[in-house]
């Protein structure tokens, strides 16, 4: 595919890996543990596993798969609330595909569908609005999840519904924001990260400036990265270069897509429709201040939380689950007590086993159990 295959070129990859090896050998002599780089975004995690990138890197580099899979970090209580709404007879519940499998405390949306709830998979909130148009006697609810990447499209859909005067459409808003989450990770006392790959799609919306605290206050390098394998390799090289030079800066590898100032129109829609929640519950990470948004009162008629009585029960993560430590990079997925035993993709306990972008599911599926094992 033109404009895509160029970013998957084997020779260029080999050259980059060689350059990475060179830098690593210079850095490694000053360190007594692996160089830990966290990719914040689930899309990067997917690319890393899909192309076997981890096995191509020198063993001194450890990739830590961060919290950037919005499906993975959804707490059980929110799924329960969504299931409760979906089970109302007048409701058509619409959702992105991979959110259907996330376990709630009672059931997932997939199970709710099997039990008779009208749950439908959509590719965009606009599909959901189209369903509302087509079914004026039903209540269509969109299960809004995702970081700043998907936040604007949900906002624009609400604005569109308002413009058309459609009233049988609402959003169960679970959108979350990336910056407080990165901050929470950086504040964790057991932090062992040397640098970050910044999220590409999120940054296309918010730009690169919101990350400046990472370099300024926490002295960690961050490179906003694209999703093609060469993007990822080049970004890793850029992070290493900063580490070697003793720099901590926010660099933009994905400049072909990400403007430093973000996307004004998207940000405008976001600001118009949402306001920050005081706190939001994350699976594995607990409550993080200002890490989620809710729909402003001006758009209350489109807010499923206001339209329907939600049980709104908080469900604690299963005790045996160590998703939080994995998300923060303290342990690797396979070091978790229940990885591959009580927690598998068939019966996920923790969120990271649910979505194919979740670090644990990715390790389980793509079997990156030991990089040496597959690098042969």
């Amino acid at each position, binding site marked *: *595919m033109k404009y895509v295959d160029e970013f998957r070129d084997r020779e260029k990859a080999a050259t980059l*890996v060689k350059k990475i090896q060179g830098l690593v050998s210079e850095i490694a002599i000053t360190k007594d543990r692996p160089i830990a780089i966290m990719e914040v975004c689930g899309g990067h995690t997917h690319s890393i596993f899909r192309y*076997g990138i981890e096995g191509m890197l020198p063993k001194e580099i450890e990739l830590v798969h961060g919290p950037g899979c919005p499906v993975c970090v959804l707490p059980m209580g929110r799924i329960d609330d969504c299931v409760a709404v979906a089970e109302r007879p007048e409701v058509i519940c619409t959702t992105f595909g991979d959110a259907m499998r996330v376990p709630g405390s009672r059931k997932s949306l997939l199970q709710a569908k099997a039990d008779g709830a009208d749950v439908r*998979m959509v*590719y965009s909130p606009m599909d959901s609005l189209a369903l509302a148009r087509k079914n004026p006697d039903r209540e269509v609810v969109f299960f809004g999840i995702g970081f700043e990447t998907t936040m604007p499209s949900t906002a624009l859909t609400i604005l569109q519904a308002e413009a058309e005067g459609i009233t049988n459409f609402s959003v169960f808003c679970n959108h979350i924001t990336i910056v407080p989450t990165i901050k929470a990770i950086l504040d964790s006392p057991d932090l062992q990260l040397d640098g970050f790959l910044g999220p590409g799609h999120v940054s296309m919306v918010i730009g690169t400036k919101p990350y400046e605290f990472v370099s300024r206050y926490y002295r960690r390098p961050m490179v906003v990265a694209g999703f093609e394998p060469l993007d990822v390799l080049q970004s890793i090289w850029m992070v290493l270069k900063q580490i070697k030079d003793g720099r901590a800066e926010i660099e933009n590898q994905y400049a072909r897509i990400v403007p430093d100032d973000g996307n004004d129109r998207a940000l405008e829609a976001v600001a118009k429709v949402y306001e920050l929640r005081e706190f939001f519950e994350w699976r594995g990470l607990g409550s993080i201040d200002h890490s989620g948004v809710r729909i402003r009162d001006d758009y209350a008629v489109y807010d499923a939380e206001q339209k329907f009585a939600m049980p709104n029960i908080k469900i604690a993560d299963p005790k045996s689950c160590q998703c939080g430590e994995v998300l923060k990079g303290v342990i690797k997925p396979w070091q978790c007590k229940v990885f591959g035993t009580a927690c598998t993709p068939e019966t996920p306990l923790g969120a990271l086993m649910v979505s194919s972008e979740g670090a644990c599911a990715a390790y*389980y599926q793509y079997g990156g159990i030991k990089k040496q094992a597959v690098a042969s």
Partner: protein
Amino acid sequence: MNVIPISRPGRKLGTVSVPNVTLAHGGGGKAMKDLIDDVFISVFNGSGPDALEDQARIDLLGLTKLGDRVAFTTDSFVVDPLFFPGGDIGKLAICGTINDLAVGGAKPLYISCAAIIEEGVSVDLLRRIARSMAETAQAAGVRIVTGDTKVVHKGACDKVFLTTTGIGVIADGINLGVDQARPGDLVLVNGLLGDHGAAILGARGDMALDSPIVSDCAALHELIARLLQAAPHTRAIRDATRGGIATVLNEIADASGVSISVDEEHTPIRPEVKGFCEILGLDPLYLANEGKLVAVVPPDEAGAALLALRSDPLGRDAEIIGEVGEGESGRVTMHTVLGGVRIVDMLVGEQLPRIC
């Protein structure tokens, strides 16, 4: 069982004059007989002395001339939509059953067809499906010899479900098996992967595609006969239907206690299917095929096998995609275009599009 009575020469076939099927067409009376006559008997190519019996009768002696084992298979078809670019449920059912016989090395001969029909379905739609089955069977040289219909209440099934059962004969000396792969063997496919899965998803209309992706739905028995002639020691053949090629490779690796490594660069996938998968976050290795086989062939016959496949229109894009190894038993890996290695595991549930 209301069997499809195979037509006796000169018997006048009933016809249906109403546009849609009702429960009366499943009632066992004249309406049902008319429906079966009109839709199925009028186009199916079976006939013989056993006409009007509750079962097809097959001459044993005729079978034993063809080989030493009977192959017997059954499969149900519930595709939505019923008609899609490159095929329909009828063609799918016949090809699917032929392929399930053929991958065992059998010559497919006879097929039965049972249809579960939702009341309200248009008779014309059924006629189109039956005609497609008849044409596919005729082109493939197999006969549809018996069958059954049931009509169920609205909502009890989705328009039409088909179940086809097939009988074929395996010639002496052919011993294909998924447990036969040995280290050093090569793995072949007969062409571009994932077309059917992408065609079905595309035809559901969720994605606006410029040009539709066409299903690869095809009967592979002649291609397989050609392959077995060129590579008589072929170890295993499987058609890569549900779960795609990834699932078949895992089944072979598991059953044979070997590892398999495939090379992404030589795995043939159409750019449109690749693009489709990228947008939806799907993996083409897990998409269904309906006209693609995976063959494991000993190394000294692989060249001949590839040539044989490529000499047939259904194998024009055939490739050697990988190799059987001694590594961890049951493990399937892929060397990626980038130069890395990933593991290709069995899928857990249905493949769901990713959010971003």
